[in-house]
């Protein structure tokens, strides 16, 4: 690697103060520190040694935790395609073809998200003269995982640029943002281009093929919602009998849990989200409190709905909320974003719990939004500082009371 180092050392003066390309220093720096961790040492005073962790390593841990979701999502995209077009029956038949189709659809989305977002990052870093933020390593992977594989690439690019600029850079970059950047990207698509990210037609890639007779592209969430409106059969029955044209049990609990269902690329599999959660909690990168209380909140609210049971949706066994839609993915990867989440330990419990509860409330009671996790996370992002405010205030009050006793 010496030749690389020599090359960098040779070019470095160009980018440093007084060099020709001084204005591009932070772009150079990003590349340099990506390849070589810097050689600067600790100061004269203060801690003389530092922990081996840095932000890059932390961020890449999150990216690694998403890989199971990404791989599963790619395969499932191909699987759903063949299933809907009558190309296969078994899960593991046509393995290569499914993975190929999935990769063909998903990888360009990943690339576009990284390229578009990276470009915005670089421009802002150069103009605003701050280092390029590692946070984008995560955002660039999150955005592809929360959109359907059929999303037009230009929309991916547009949403990414919008989210990085409006949700992050205007606040000062990673660490300063209020909203989760990836969720903002998804919300942008949802409200700007609803035709490509909602309804029954976008979740399964059909390509130029015709779907099999009796195919329905509806997601589990909309099936359950319609069951609630119809009231002719229970929500669980409606799920079980849905889309039998593709084989029975598509929306049975186990299948929903594993994730062999249509949906956004990375969010269909609760199982893979839990694998990610295991990585994030095991490495200590994400707060287990948020994840645990998020799932608990959804269950509790599902249970409360059961108590009222005004319609079939409200009677749905609470555990179904865990496996339908993007709840698991959202709680594991979006709610735990440390910057936009509550930052106090007590606050994390409240924040997670409310995200879970709100998601179920939106799902069950709001006809406009079949999925609630996106809005619940964004809503709680906005409220996280308020939760923290009261937790911090309690800390101050304890200190003050002590003084006056």
């Amino acid at each position, binding site marked *: 690697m010496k030749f690389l180092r020599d090359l960098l050392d040779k070019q470095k003066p160009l980018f440093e103060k007084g060099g020709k390309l001084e204005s591009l220093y932070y772009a150079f720096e990003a590349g340099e520190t990506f390849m070589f*961790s810097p050689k600067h040492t600790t100061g004269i005073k203060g801690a003389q040694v530092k922990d081996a962790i*840095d932000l890059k390593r932390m961020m890449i841990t999150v990216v690694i935790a998403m890989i199971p979701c990404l791989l599963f999502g790619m395969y499932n995209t191909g699987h759903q395609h063949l299933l809907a077009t009558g190309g296969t029956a078994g899960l593991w038949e046509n393995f290569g073809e499914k993975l190929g189709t999935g990769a063909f659809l998903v990888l360009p989305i990943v690339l576009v998200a990284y390229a578009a977002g990276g470009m915005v990052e670089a421009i802002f870093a150069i103009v605003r003269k701050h280092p390029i933020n*590692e946070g984008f390593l995560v955002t660039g992977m999150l955005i592809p995982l929360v959109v359907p594989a059929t999303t037009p690439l230009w929309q991916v690019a547009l949403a990414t640029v919008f989210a990085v600029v409006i949700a992050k850079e205007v606040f000062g970059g*990673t660490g300063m943002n209020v909203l989760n950047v990836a969720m903002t990207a998804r919300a942008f698509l949802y409200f700007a281009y609803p035709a490509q990210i909602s309804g029954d037609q976008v979740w399964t890639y059909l390509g130029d093929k015709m779907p099999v007779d009796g195919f329905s592209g509806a997601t589990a969430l909309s099936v359950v919602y319609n069951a609630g409106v119809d009231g002719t059969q229970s929500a669980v029955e409606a799920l079980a009998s849905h889309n039998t044209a593709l084989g029975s049990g598509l929306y049975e609990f186990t299948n929903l849990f594993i994730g062999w269902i249509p949906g956004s690329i990375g969010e269909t599999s609760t199982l893979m989200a839990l694998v990610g959660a295991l990585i994030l909690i095991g490495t200590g990168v994400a*707060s287990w409190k948020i994840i645990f209380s998020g799932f608990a909140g959804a269950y509790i609210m599902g249970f409360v709905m059961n108590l009222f049971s005004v319609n079939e949706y409200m009677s749905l066994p609470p555990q179904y909320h865990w496996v339908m839609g993007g709840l698991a993915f959202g709680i594991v990867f979006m709610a735990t974003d440390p910057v936009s989440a509550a930052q106090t330990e007590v606050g994390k419990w409240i924040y997670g719990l409310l995200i879970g509860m709100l998601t179920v409330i939106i799902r069950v009671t709001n006809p406009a939004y079949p999925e609630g996790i996106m809005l619940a996370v964004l809503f709680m992002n906005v409220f996280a500082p308020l939760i923290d405010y009261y937790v911090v205030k309690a800390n101050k009050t304890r200190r003050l009371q002590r003084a006056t006793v």
Partner: protein
Amino acid sequence: MGRFSKAHSSKTDMSKIVKLKKGFDINLVGKAKQELADFAPAQTFAIKPTDFIGLQRPKVLVNEGDTVKAGTPILIDKALDQVMYAAPVSGKIVEVKRGDRRKLLEISILADATIDHEQLGAVNIASLDRDALAAKLAASGVWPNIIQRPYGIVANPTDTPKSIFISAFDTHPLAPDYAFALQGQEKYLQAGIEALAKLTSGKVHLNVDGSKPTPSVFADLKGAQVNKFSGPHPAGNVGVQIHHLDPMNKGEIAWTVSPYGLAQIGKLILEGVYDASKIIAVTGSELTKAAYVKTYMGASVSTFVKGNLNSGHVRVISGNVLTGEKISLEGFLGFYHNQITVIPEGDYYEFMGWAKPTTRLSYHRALGLLSFLTPNKEFVMDSNGRGEERAFVQTGVFESVTPMDILPVYLLKAIMAEDFDEIEELGIYEIVEEDLALCEFVDVSKHPVQELVRKGIELIQYS
């Protein structure tokens, strides 16, 4: 005590037992062997005004070429001029070193072969009133050992503190074992406690390590409330202990003294001399021989380090790796430091250093950080900065190494924003740099935490 601090304490006969869970022990290679090394004695000694935080207007009382005795005043702070900063040894003033804008850096003394002390007269504590005792201590050279909370500055002899705290153990990396370093000093420690008891309106607290039997040097001391603290670092930090015993509130003043300082005070009381001799730990992975050595405050470290190195490119630290200060090979031991630590200098690039699996010490377990698998291993750590400074991203980590009911990130952000009310309300009176030093170590975003703490203290102190 805060509802959320994971400590539980119980009262037995007034003294407290506090078990702390939060914190982190940094185990390093190069622990001092419990023996006195026969290093060549240090020749020169220095008083560095920069060691005394809050010393505002230093005035040198001697000139180059003057001869002094141990205990001769050589420096005062014109803002607190009853406190004398005395020569630790007898000898000749060889240099009064100044830096930019004539900032006073060092007053160095070439020591005599045998140390001659100023005879200040033994003190009968009972016969002096409080103020006379304080004045006596202030004039003798031992006073700067007494530190005021809040702010961590040299105490003002005219204040009466609500209590005085002594931490009888040091949990910093490679810290000296007081039981060894202070052996035989029992009677001086006892006299020191008696003197301090007279200076406070409250109690003298002696906080011992609750995880092992109290060493004999502290076991029989009387006149102090003995409290037991156990847990990982920073359980030995006096600031943490104060938080759990009698926390600092706005407007209150407490004092702290290290056992080294306590022994000095006791020696002045009993023998009437300023004896700055002390046994320090010479530690660190880069030393061939890590052991204790008997010397004086402000010793030049070169004779302990040169010829004792097993590698060439090193950093010499006065103090420990968390709160110490980088000095040169010819540098001097800091006034408050009882150890030197020698580690490798870390000025190297590392290819893909942020992604490679590593066995380097980390409090975290993120991808590729493997040190959590070997919790009892002793590590070699160098001075590499380990990545660039970033905005705060990760949360909850600082809290997990701070065994106090304090929210470090909020406090630090308030300091950055210079929000005076917030700084005060979030607990600036309860901390000094060392209490959040672990935060600086574990920080993913590499903030200069200790520098910020001092900035926050100064904002409040001088507002």
